């Protein structure tokens, strides 16, 4: 219990630190929300006046304190660009990005586990060099490029889907998921090859261990040994890996959203930064930081469950 409480305490401190950083960062970059709103009508006096009207000329610490107080009450402020409460603005976007990230993880797990085991079993054959090379290649493709390739092949050549034709999950959940398969695949590809490599290495290491030799000597068939015993032990580092790359997957979805025209957190984060829409940026950053920290926490806790020998 004390362990969990300590972890949660660290979590809150981390989030505060990240939010503070963002707040301060905005004070250093040129331009301001007032300038963004005024555009080419801007003059030094008009900017100063609008800044005052928006309360932006108060000291950073005061504004930060006010923001934190609001968060505690669940009030994330009002978007400067859209004049709507941030929670309302972001709720649908968060759902989309989360859906995309979860699909990416699912695809990664579903495709990489069997592939990893298969490659591990074939590690003595001539195909090994081929697998390793192909794996390495896929690992190094950046997600936006694999996104463009997938759009080209599956969208324009094979006509399996229509690029850009995203359908909101509110209107048609099934169609939405069907469209999201492709961006999810783009994000998953490099992760699949990483997990395959990891799984192969771990599985082979496990296969050398004594308990495996014992299983063989007991008469278990190779395949059964791999799936029943080796996999269970090899899974642990993989789960750790997936937990830690969850943040990476969310980041990947933000990039891939641009290629596939998916209205998730990615686009609104980028436009809010360039439009200096502080409340929206801060809310999104807080969200992402929370997702990372919480997923790491879950991995830590799961870790302990999977292998009772481990003492974190």
């Amino acid at each position, binding site marked *: 219990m004390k362990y969990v409480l300590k972890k949660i305490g660290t979590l809150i401190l981390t989030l505060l630190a990240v939010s503070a950083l963002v707040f301060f960062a905005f004070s250093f970059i040129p331009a301001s929300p007032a300038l963004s709103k005024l555009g080419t009508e801007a003059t030094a006096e008009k900017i100063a006046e609008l800044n005052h009207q928006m309360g932006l000329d108060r000291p950073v610490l005061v504004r930060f304190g006010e923001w934190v107080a609001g968060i505690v009450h669940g009030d994330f402020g009002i978007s400067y660009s859209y004049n709507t409460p941030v929670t309302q603005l972001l709720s649908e976007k968060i759902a989309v990005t989360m859906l995309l990230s979860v699909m990416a993880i699912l695809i990664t797990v579903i495709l990489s586990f069997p592939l990893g085991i298969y490659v591990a079993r074939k590690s003595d054959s001539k195909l090994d060099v081929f697998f390793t090379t192909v794996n390495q290649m896929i690992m190094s493709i950046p997600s936006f490029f694999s996104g463009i390739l997938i759009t080209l092949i599956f969208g324009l050549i094979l006509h399996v889907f229509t*690029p850009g034709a995203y359908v909101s999950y509110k209107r048609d959940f099934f169609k939405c998921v069907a469209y999201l398969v492709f961006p999810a695949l783009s994000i998953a590809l490099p992760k699949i090859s990483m997990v395959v490599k990891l799984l192969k290495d771990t599985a082979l290491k496990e296969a050398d261990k004594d308990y495996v030799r014992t299983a063989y000597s007991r008469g278990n068939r190779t395949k059964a040994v791999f799936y029943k015993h080796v996999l269970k032990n090899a899974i642990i580092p993989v789960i750790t890996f997936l937990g830690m790359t969850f943040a990476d997957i969310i980041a990947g979805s933000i990039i891939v959203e641009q290629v596939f025209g998916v209205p998730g957190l990615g686009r609104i984060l980028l436009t809010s930064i360039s439009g200096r829409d502080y409340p929206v940026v801060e809310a999104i950053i807080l969200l992402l930081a929370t997702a990372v920290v919480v997923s790491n926490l879950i991995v830590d806790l799961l870790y302990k469950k999977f292998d009772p020998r481990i003492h974190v």
Partner: protein
Amino acid sequence: MKAFKKLWRLIILSATLTVALCACGGDKAGDASKHITIGIPQDLSDSLDPHEALAAGTREILFNIYEGLVKPDSNGDLKPAVADEYSVSEDGLTYTFHLRKGVKFHNGKDVTADDVLYSIKRNADPDSTLANASAFSNVKEYKADGENIVITLNKKDGDFLQTMTIAIVPEGVDNLSTQPCGTGPYKFVSRSPQENIILKRFADYWGEKAYIEDVTLKICANADSITMDLLGGSVDFFARITASQALQLKDSNFNIEEGTMNLVQAMYLNNAVEPFNNEKVRQALCYAVDPKEIIDFAFDGKGTELGSSMFPAFGKYFVKEINDVYNPDIEKAKELLKEAGYENGFSFAIKVPSNYQPHIDTAQVIVEQLKKIGVNAEIKLVEWDSWLSDVYVGRDFEATVVGVDASTMTAKAMLERFTSDSSKNFVNFKSDAYDAAFNNAINATDDATATEYYKECEWILAREAANVYIQDLAEMVAINNKYTGYEFYPIYVLDIAKIKPAK
């Protein structure tokens, strides 16, 4: 692990099924008269209130939702809209607008004189902080007289009619910044931020109804996926495509229509810093930079050369001959540099906004052209908001490549910014001759004299080499051949009501 294998097989099966079913979704050849999807590069992220909206991208869409007492047609001429006729008194001080009968707002309410007065009041009120407020500073009084609106000015102003293109909004409606309500051919239905905006044809429109019933304005933020979206069929129309995108769409089911962007692209020079405070240096750069080469190299030969801060769509104000003030002449350029004391050339930085590829491409050609006279230019890419704050407001730059247009189709709006005390004079141009000519123009008693003085201003800008003028960029629009009827306007608008299904 038998259960695992069973599960695995089930997952493979459902995945294949999903993929197969998406293929079935396919392309329902949409009925062209019912719906069109128009791609726009950015979301309308400032207020949807027409009196508050400043961004050109927002105003070009609001053009379909709101109208003023008069509104521009595709030639830039003002035609009656919410007013069905108007007259100006002999002395030019009193304007009388007759309210058209039967004009309705999108919420079903009839337009009354009170709504017009309210719309004017929002802008003319001395405490108003709205963008158009300065345009109303010349208004002495305005009132309703039966079915007429009478506006009296303090001073005669030939451009006043332009001001009456401001939107007529319903009195007493509070949420205009998020829920537009106007009199235009399309009404606002809904929006999903960063995703789309939905419009619907207004059935009770007073004039010629729009052809297409439902319009989806889809935000296509990623420039690279625009061609894929067009070819894939999820977007039917996209304005301002680049030359390379047009090439990709050749021989497809898209027509590329050509117009002009109606702006002045130039390398704007900060006249207040060295060496650009020396007229000879500025003139040398004008002789060294060859606009034709830029247009051929970076824009596939499409673009109209300009010699001053005015473009052809302005009709009578545009003087073609000004372009010949500086024909490319490397020797003359070198000679001028020598006279100015820069025989060995010099270095400077060109700040270019990073979101405008045409300006980046132009700057790159300029860098090469200037090398021939021993001048080294370095390109610095800046984010748009940083450009606004550092270059436009802060005037902290040496040179910049950007396109400048006028908020209204008036010579005054275009040329005002170069008077020495203008708050928009980001190039710090200072010329007594210019100030005098401009002053004469705005005080002229008749249109012909004013036009002559405005032209004089343009000649001065060229002769004193305020900037290195390049071109009015060509605008290319990609439209699915299911549709036709798109008309180019000399101002930044997207007239959706004119688009109709091709037979």
